[in-house]
């Protein structure tokens, strides 16, 4: 390689590695702002602002969903793998993919008593794609 080409290539590599480092350091410093939602342990440990619009996410605890006898009101628990749990109150239509044992994200406010009042509920689908005849045959199906 001719020397002027080598010099240009070196400049480009430094330009790229320099900007890459800058950007990566910035986004990891801003991780709390880039994360789309808080996890159950952050909610339970009081690491989140109260009475402010936030998002929280986790897994809908199996067997915890209670529909009100009248109206659209619903309560359920959101949990993580370590069984840290908080309660959610919501009034509205749940997305079709919302189900027990699946991921969900709720947007709303956390009150002082640790109950989350959701304005909106989203269903978070996982990366598993399984045909219906195999349902129940795979261990990841029912966590």
């Amino acid at each position, binding site marked *: 390689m001719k020397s002027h*080409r080598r010099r*240009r*290539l070196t400049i*480009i590599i430094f*330009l*790229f590695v320099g*900007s*890459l480092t800058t*950007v990566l350091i910035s*986004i*990891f410093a801003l*991780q709390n702002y*880039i*994360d*789309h*939602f*808080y*996890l159950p342990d952050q909610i339970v440990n009081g690491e989140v602002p109260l009475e402010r619009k936030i998002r929280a*996410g986790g897994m809908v605890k199996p067997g915890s969903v209670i529909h009100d006898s009248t109206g659209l009101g619903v309560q359920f628990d959101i949990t993580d793998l370590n069984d840290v749990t908080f309660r959610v109150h919501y009034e509205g239509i*749940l*997305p*079709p*993919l*919302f*189900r027990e044992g*699946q991921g969900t*994200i709720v947007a709303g406010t956390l009150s002082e008593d640790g109950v989350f009042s959701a304005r*909106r*509920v*989203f*269903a*978070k*689908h*996982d*990366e*598993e*794609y*399984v*045909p*219906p*005849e*195999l*349902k129940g045959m795979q261990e990841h*199906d029912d966590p």
Partner: protein
Amino acid sequence: MKFVPSWLNRLASPQHFFIDIKPWIMWLYVLGTIGLLVGSVWGLAFVPPERYQGDSFRILYVHAPIAHLAQLIYISIAIAGVVHLVWKLKMADVYMSAAAPVGCWLTALALVSGMIWGMPTWGTAWVWDARIVSTLILFFLYFGLIVLRRVIPNPARAATALSILAIVGAINVPIIKFSVEWFNTLHQPASIELFGDVSIDRVFLVPLFINIASISVLSAGIILAYMRYLVVERNASMTWIQEWSRGKNQ
């Protein structure tokens, strides 16, 4: 440079590129179109629905190949940027200009198909999570590449500016890729890892890979055809182009 094969060396010359590539384009179009038809019909009609998502998961066959290729093309443009800055190859500059609009369209389609997918599954078309925002940034980067070419009148300076934007912007691609692992996002993590697990059942996979291959082949055809167009446009004053166009008109 002995490590470059002679046919590739030959393609670096606009004139040889223009002549040699022509017969390939039709084949790429035909192969890509047939593949897309086969993969899409297979994926839309002959594959069972997904256990939870039902039929709405089938947009996977559109969304995933397009989004994947949109990122791949950006990387290729960045490599062309390096080649242009270091070796000053004319065709690298032509490639950047030809591939940017294709990538821009693919990114737009990836965003739109993702929104269409999000409505029945997530319950929303748009959230500001890391995956979606970084893909939106990819769209703006492509848009920047297209605009930069138009606003800088001097072609050599435009090519240099394009290369730098392409190289620096390439940082965004690994961020898109790893956004779902580094951050909490509504978007699910990757289903197919190059050196790891595939969490898509086998019955779903074949049409997906057919579509990924076909959209790549079809896009390659479109990019090469557009490159030939740009070669004519930029070399219009050359004798070989004028001879070619005279030969065509007879």
